[in-house]
């Protein structure tokens, strides 16, 4: 049991627990807060995997912007009624998810890869410079397309949500 392993297990437990909270809490705001926690834990997992830049972006973009938007919408709509819950679908969803886990886990663990940090890396792995290098050379076209996608999303959101344009 190394320190890294302990850290991983703690983070894994926390993120699974908080993700379960996301789906099992009847209150939407509680779900959202749990999701923020999950995202935060996953961001820390990113940092432990030598991806500090992506981890920071995870907090900045996901937790800091997207989830705030969710909360904003929840507060804006302020749905008073708690959701109804169907037993049938609850059971189907649970069984389906369990089956998915039981099928995915053997598939993922019988593979030949073993250690997550086996590849030799330089100290700057995962730094902003490295990520930028990758984004602005190999992925420059997807990068530009992503910017267009965001623009379209902004326009679409304005058109959809505004009462009168």
């Amino acid at each position, binding site marked *: 049991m190394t320190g890294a392993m302990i850290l991983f297990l703690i983070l894994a437990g926390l993120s699974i627990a908080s993700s379960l909270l996301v789906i099992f809490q009847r209150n939407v705001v509680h779900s959202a807060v749990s999701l923020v926690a999950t995202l935060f834990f996953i961001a820390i997992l990113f940092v432990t995997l030598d991806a500090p830049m992506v981890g920071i972006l995870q907090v900045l973009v996901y937790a800091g912007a997207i989830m705030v938007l969710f909360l904003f919408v929840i507060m804006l709509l302020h749905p008073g009624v708690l959701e109804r819950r169907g037993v049938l*679908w609850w059971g*189907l*969803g649970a069984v*389906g998810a369990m*089956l*998915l886990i039981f*099928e*995915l886990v*053997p*598939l993922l663990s019988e593979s030949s890869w073993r250690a997550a940090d086996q590849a030799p890396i330089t100290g700057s792995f995962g730094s902003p410079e490295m990520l930028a290098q990758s984004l602005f050379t190999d992925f420059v076209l997807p990068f530009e397309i992503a910017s267009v996608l965001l623009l379209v999303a902004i326009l679409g959101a304005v058109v959809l949500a505004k009462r009168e344009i």
Partner: protein
Amino acid sequence: MEDLSFLRLVPLIPLLGAALNVFLGMRLGRRNAGLLACACVAIAFFLSLWAFWSLPAGGVFKDTVFTWIESDPFQAQLSFRVDALTAVMLLVVTGVGLLIHIYSLGYMGHDEGMVRYFAYLNLFIFFMLLLVMADNLLLLFVGWEGVGLCSYLLIGFWYHDPTNTIAGNKAFIVNRIGDFGFLLGVLLLFWEMGSQGVWTVDFLELERNAHLLAPGKVTLITLLLFVGATGKSAQIPLYVWLPDAMQGPTPVSALIHAATMVTAGIYMTARLHFLFSMAPATLAVIATIGALTAFFAATIGVAQNDIKRVLAYSTVSQLGYMFLAVGVGAFATAIFHLFTHAFFKACLFLSAGSVIHGLQGEQDMRKMGGLKSYFPITYWTHLTAALAISGAPLTAGFFSKDQILWQAFASPAGSFWLWLLAWLTAGLTAFYMFRQLFLVFHGECKAEGHVRAHIHESPLVMTVPLILLALGSIVAGWLGPPEFMWESIWDPWLQPVFGVPEEVPHEPMIEGLLMVLTLGIAALGYYLAYVSYARARKIPEILSSWAGGTPYHCLLSKYYVDEIYDLLLVRPFTACSRWLADVFDLGVIDGAVNGVANRVKSNSLFWRQLQSGNVQHYLFGFLTGTLLILAYYLYR
């Protein structure tokens, strides 16, 4: 054989004119559209003249545009060719066509659809040129169908009147019957040639390899081709469309249904003369049908009252003459009559048109009369053309018709009976032409008052073409006189195409005698017409009530041929179609389609329940599929 790349311009310029008129005509205005069409035909005419003048005796010009169909080993070129025969046809089509275009400027000047009219007319010239300049049978067929289309469009030009569109339909459908035979002939020829290892439709190649065909096959092929010719050139039994085609504008009748298109059948047989010469049985059939048609149509023409219908039956009759000439193997003579006929028949139609124009659309001859003083120029041109068609000495018809009669009598394929029919027809021709002349221009004017007030001679733009055509009706014949008068330049000109004709023994005595006999019967016809219609007006009434009026009504009703066709062909066919439409189509075909559709629908009604509109159901389906795929990977 020489390459001459401007040849393609001859048909293409009228096509361009048609396209311009279709797309821009409304903006150009009616007058400019007409002038544009005339200019296009004029250019085509001068190009044809140039080709004609530069064509050496026996020479052939050729212009290959591109390879149209390529299917190894078969190749069809889109190419034009001009030889002596085509040159003559070119001049007829573009020359007469030009005059009629100019005439139309006046005749159609007040018509709403003038732009459309000139577009059609130019399109017709294009297809006709395609037909006569085609280098192979397929291209000829394209032109053949194209002129049929234009004929249909122009017969039904005033489409507001249902009778016109019905007449157009009739022309088109009757032509389809002929075209079907023609197409079968072409395909059979192609197939038979191909089975001999020669995959071609090119005229030159066909001529070179015609000897490979078995005689029986040739007879069949030529008979089928002749079926096409009877359709297009209005011979028994398919002549019925031509009189109805008179519903179109008169210049159209002159151009398409007298001077050019209807002669396509003659042209085709002349173009394929090498095949027809190989099939004496077919030639006998052609000669018989030609002579019968000539006589038969002339008898109908005697009793008609519509000024244009008389001319229409006259056309059928004259076409019969041409086929008679073809049938006795005298192709050059047939083309000669075609040539002269183009002038005087166009002239007759146009002067009739001039009268109709002046009388504001009146076509019934019984309501005319005494128009000589109102229409001085029209009268004289009509008289000239009538003399020419009747075979008055030294006019065009005199020479060409005489030659046909002589060939029918003297050529090896000819016989006395053929000559007799043709001779009687000559008399009838003179009779009905002068009957028309006297009814229209002599006697008292029987037009209604308000019409009479507006009678006027046609403008220059119409009379000048009339005068030119009248001149042609006289001069055109001087090219090919009988041997004993002066030397013909017609036969030597066409000799390279048709080859040296079989030697018909020249017997000036008999020839002269026949000529005198012909002139005699023509004079008799003239005299009878004069007596009946210019002096004693009783005779027609006596004749028409003779034998209880049966013969007269029989003639007036065109021997009831339309009614017979209707009873024998149209009604059974319609009944059959009706049964197919009402019982077979609705019950079997629609039943099958509807049955399949109903089965699909009832199935869909069940399965579409799956599409509940609930996103979560879909997602669950998605999840199930994913699980199954994963399970496959896990447990395979």
